[in-house]
């Protein structure tokens, strides 16, 4: 469990990125932080592995204040996946995946064997192991990034807009992969995105943030849609524009769900 207690971050130039945030991130679930740029979502994420230190309040992992843990040790125990994959361009795929285990002092052979298994886990062919990152497609690089994040079998996986830079088709594919993986592995995933559809698709809990690092609402997608906390949330999720309003019409005796524009979204079961 990750807990933010009254966390504030003010940068030296005076801008407040995160303002007095309290959230509990439940274990083995996916929590999505969503908001437009400048809402402090990435800052919040990066406080968990101490890439950013708060100027006020505490961040606790399983009851331990992260400020008391050596940042390097902390980071080596937490998976991190970022937008551009962040792979080291001068190392082969296999060495990229094995980076953290090697940093932790595992033997090269064991780390490589494990890295190959991880390529299977994220759905990459083992023949890609000897390629360099630049020789992979964007989607493949992102999968390698996920494999690297999982390399030390962390309890916590931080994902900072990991699918932001790939095309929509590949993104949809990667989202499904992540759902499958999460079903198998059950990690505590903290996921940052600016795409509300992605948030609703992936999140067990969705945290909606607004400018200045304020939390507007933290709840399950269904609850947010049912009871948006305020007009900002309603606007952000598109409920007020009727974008999410679905209604049922009968077509040849079957009940079809249709969205606001009259496009068929699905058929009601039963």
């Amino acid at each position, binding site marked *: 469990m990750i807990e933010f207690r009254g966390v504030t971050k003010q940068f030296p130039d005076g801008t407040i990125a995160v303002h007095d945030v309290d959230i509990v991130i439940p274990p083995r679930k996916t929590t999505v932080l969503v908001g437009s740029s400048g809402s402090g979502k990435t800052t919040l994420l*990066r406080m968990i*592995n101490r*890439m950013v230190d708060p100027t006020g309040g505490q961040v606790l992992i399983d009851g331990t204040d992260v400020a008391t843990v050596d*940042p*390097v*040790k*902390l*980071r*080596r*125990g937490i998976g*991190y996946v*970022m937008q*551009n*994959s*962040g*792979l*080291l*361009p*001068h*190392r*082969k795929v296999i060495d990229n995946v094995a*980076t*953290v285990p090697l*940093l932790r002092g595992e033997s090269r052979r064991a780390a490589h064997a494990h890295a190959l298994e991880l390529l299977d886990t994220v759905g990459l062919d083992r023949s890609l192991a000897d390629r*360099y*990152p*630049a*020789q992979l497609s964007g989607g493949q690089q992102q999968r390698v990034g996920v494999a*690297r994040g999982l390399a030390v079998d962390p309890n916590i996986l931080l994902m900072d807009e990991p699918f932001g830079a790939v095309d929509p088709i590949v993104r949809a594919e990667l989202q499904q992969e992540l759902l499958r993986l999460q079903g198998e592995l059950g990690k505590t995933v903290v996921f940052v995105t600016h795409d509300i559809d992605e948030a609703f698709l992936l999140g067990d809990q969705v945290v909606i943030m607004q400018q200045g690092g304020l939390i507007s609402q933290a709840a399950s997608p269904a609850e947010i849609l049912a009871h948006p906390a305020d007009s900002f949330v309603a606007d952000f999720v598109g409920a007020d524009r009727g974008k999410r309003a679905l209604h049922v019409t009968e077509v040849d005796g079957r009940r079809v769900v249709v969205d606001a524009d009259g496009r068929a979204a699905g058929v009601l079961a039963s």
Partner: protein
Amino acid sequence: MNLFLDAFAWLADPANWTGPGSIPQRIAEHLWVSALVLVIASAIALPLGALVGHTGRGREPAVMVSGGLRALPTLGVLTLFGIWIGIGLAAPVIALVILAIPPLLAGAYAGFESVDRRTIDAARAMGMRELQVVGKVELPLGMPIVVGGIRSATLQIIATATLAAYIADEGLGRFIFAGLKTRDYGEMLGGSILVILLALVIDGCFALTQRVVVPAGVRATRTAELRSGPTRSRTIVGRPNTEGNQE
């Protein structure tokens, strides 16, 4: 063309190849002084440049120092140290070190700075210590540019070491100044040819080294970029610091 004949005659004269002040001895001196200066200047400038490139702090002063020192006329610095310190190797070595610092400093900070900030960020997020970020990420990725700086510094040292023969009994420049004094164009030109060959051979060695130190994955990036057009706003040129105050 008979000027070249004079030079070849001088080069071919066996008397010039043995004894004190012979061609082999002067070449050895030239190389020894150059190597000594390169080591001292590198020990000062490379760590400093790496620190500036790594932290991003002190960039403005570093740019000013490396730019400002380039405007210094080398002959002026040499003669000034010559009359301050007197005859011997100390004066030219100190002057040469000062003149070699700008390209080394510029190469080191430009090399470290050229590394994609997002790659460094990722390395840190994985839990690399600062020294590991420097050694495992920044150094290998910035190496081609750092070596480029060492290359232009070395060329400059070799050139200035030639000129340093004006104030000290050292190196291949001795032949040029001896020839100037006795109006022996063959000796002057012969000495010049030797210096030019020495510089070109060493430059060739560096060109080769620079190719070797490009990490394989980065080479893959370059070919991928050629195929798909530029993806980065900032192009990294192999030899960015060759300009300025040569000789």
